[in-house]
């Protein structure tokens, strides 16, 4: 199925999900001294307070030995598993989607609820048997017409149209796509933690597109079956764009890429897409103290 517009933004920084896996990696790399330990807890909790998953770090005391120099030379073993979205995943998914529309205030909770209700199409990546149930990645496709009444989808469409209005010609095509052709259009949502092993990505996307084709056969009503017969996909993706790309090329510095994709698969999607447009992010850099 041909994929339609890909939207790009200049990115400030990728949100770091404070997950047990991430904590395990950070612990491997930090220097342990009993006194400093409590200090580092205090500085972490303000930013991790938003996650609601505070497992008190003092429960996992170090083995009494100090690791040297903070060199990360350990490997963390983790078994990732793909699951259907469940209502319990609310907080994890919400954290992943926190910056989906940049700083705009919108019905994010409603959007997350929508994703979690659609169990037939959509995958959530978690660590097997993890008590914390931290979400590491999310991928799903939402039919824009099926959910057109939902406040979050209306806000999303308005946001896209507002961003597109700055580029000529694009706005009309976009309006068509989001309006009349909405029954054929799927919004592809894909977010994950930065350090997720890339080996997971091909099976993740394969499973998404498989689920979409199974849904066209397995859904109980005709309407629902048709809603998954996507002719176009729409994606919102974050990129870094080099400000002085042209200058660098003149200086013969070809190694510097003009566009850096936050997620590597977006480069492939961009190449294969029918059309795309860019718009800048409005958000400020967070102060250095905030994680």
């Amino acid at each position, binding site marked *: 199925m041909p994929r339609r517009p890909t939207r790009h933004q200049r990115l400030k920084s990728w949100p770091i999900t404070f997950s047990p896996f991430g904590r395990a990696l950070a612990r491997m790399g930090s220097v342990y001294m009993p006194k400093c330990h409590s200090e580092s807890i*205090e500085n972490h*909790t303000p930013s991790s307070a938003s996650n609601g998953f505070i497992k008190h770090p003092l429960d996992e005391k170090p083995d009494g030995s100090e690791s040297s120099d903070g060199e990360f030379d350990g490997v963390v073993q983790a078994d990732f598993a793909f699951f259907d979205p469940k209502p319990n995943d609310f907080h994890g998914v919400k954290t992943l989607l926190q910056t989906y529309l940049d700083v705009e205030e919108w019905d994010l909770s409603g959007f997350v609820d929508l994703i979690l209700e659609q169990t037939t199409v959509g995958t959530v990546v978690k660590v097997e048997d993890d008590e914390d149930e931290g979400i590491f990645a999310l991928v799903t496709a939402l039919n824009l017409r099926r959910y057109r009444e939902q406040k979050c989808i209306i806000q999303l469409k308005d946001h896209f149209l507002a961003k597109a209005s700055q580029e000529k010609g694009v706005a009309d095509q976009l309006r068509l796509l989001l309006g009349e052709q909405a029954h054929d259009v799927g919004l592809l949502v894909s977010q994950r933690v930065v350090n997720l092993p890339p080996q997971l990505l091909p099976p993740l996307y394969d499973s998404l597109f498989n689920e979409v084709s199974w849904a066209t056969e397995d859904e109980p009503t005709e309407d629902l079956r048709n809603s998954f017969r996507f002719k176009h996909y729409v994606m919102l993706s974050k990129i870094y764009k080099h400000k002085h790309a042209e200058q660098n090329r003149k200086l013969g510095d070809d190694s510097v890429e003009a566009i850096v994709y936050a997620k590597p698969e977006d480069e492939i999607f961009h190449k294969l897409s029918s059309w795309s447009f860019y718009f800048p992010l409005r958000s400020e850099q967070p*102060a250095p103290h905030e994680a």
Partner: protein
Amino acid sequence: MANRLQFENNCDIGVFSKLTNAYCMVAIGGSEGFYSEFESELSGVIPVVKTSIAGTRLVGRLCAGNKNGLLLPHTTTDQELQHLRNCLPDQVVVQRIEEKLSALGNCIACNDHVALTHTDLDRETEEIIADVLGVEVFRQTIAGNILVGSFCALSNRGGLVHPHTSIEDLDELSTLLQVPLVAGTVNRGSEVIAAGMIVNDWTAFCGLDTTATEFSVIESVFKLRDSQPSVIVDEMRKSLIDSYV
């Protein structure tokens, strides 16, 4: 009355704001909508102060205070300290303390009469708390967590604590604090109560995700249903006048 709001799509408003009976502090950099929610509810009754602490927006978690005073971490800058001293009412003592546990809001839970603190707090800090905030200080844990400031929200009329607090702990804490306590959650099952909501004697603010059940528990334990700010402030004013006589 309790209200729901969010700070930049984040429902953890207790991280970005602090509410007491004498003042309210709000982080700068949020949308005007966030600030105006506080203004509409509190203006004319208590001052709403926009500030940062240590250059960050985490004002709710870095400082601890009540109507008598406000304690700031050693990382607070001189300008911020001066700004707070200027904006807060004169009877509120603003003090910056040297304490290695710098997230005071996570370590100290207090109302106008009693405070619960982190078990590893310095002796000197404990004395300063008793002195500046005018409270009795108890070193406690809540459901096994030493970050008492994070896992409970306290006012003079009630308190909400971590959902896994046992009945014995609830009774013990309730006796110490002399207020009714309830174990519950905020923001759709979040255990970090103090990050999800802020409360004083007549009003509370919760994150947008707070369910109707959580909301009604909050309104009932903090006795917010029929409270009016003027009643409380008048009581406070009468007692101030008494002291001059």
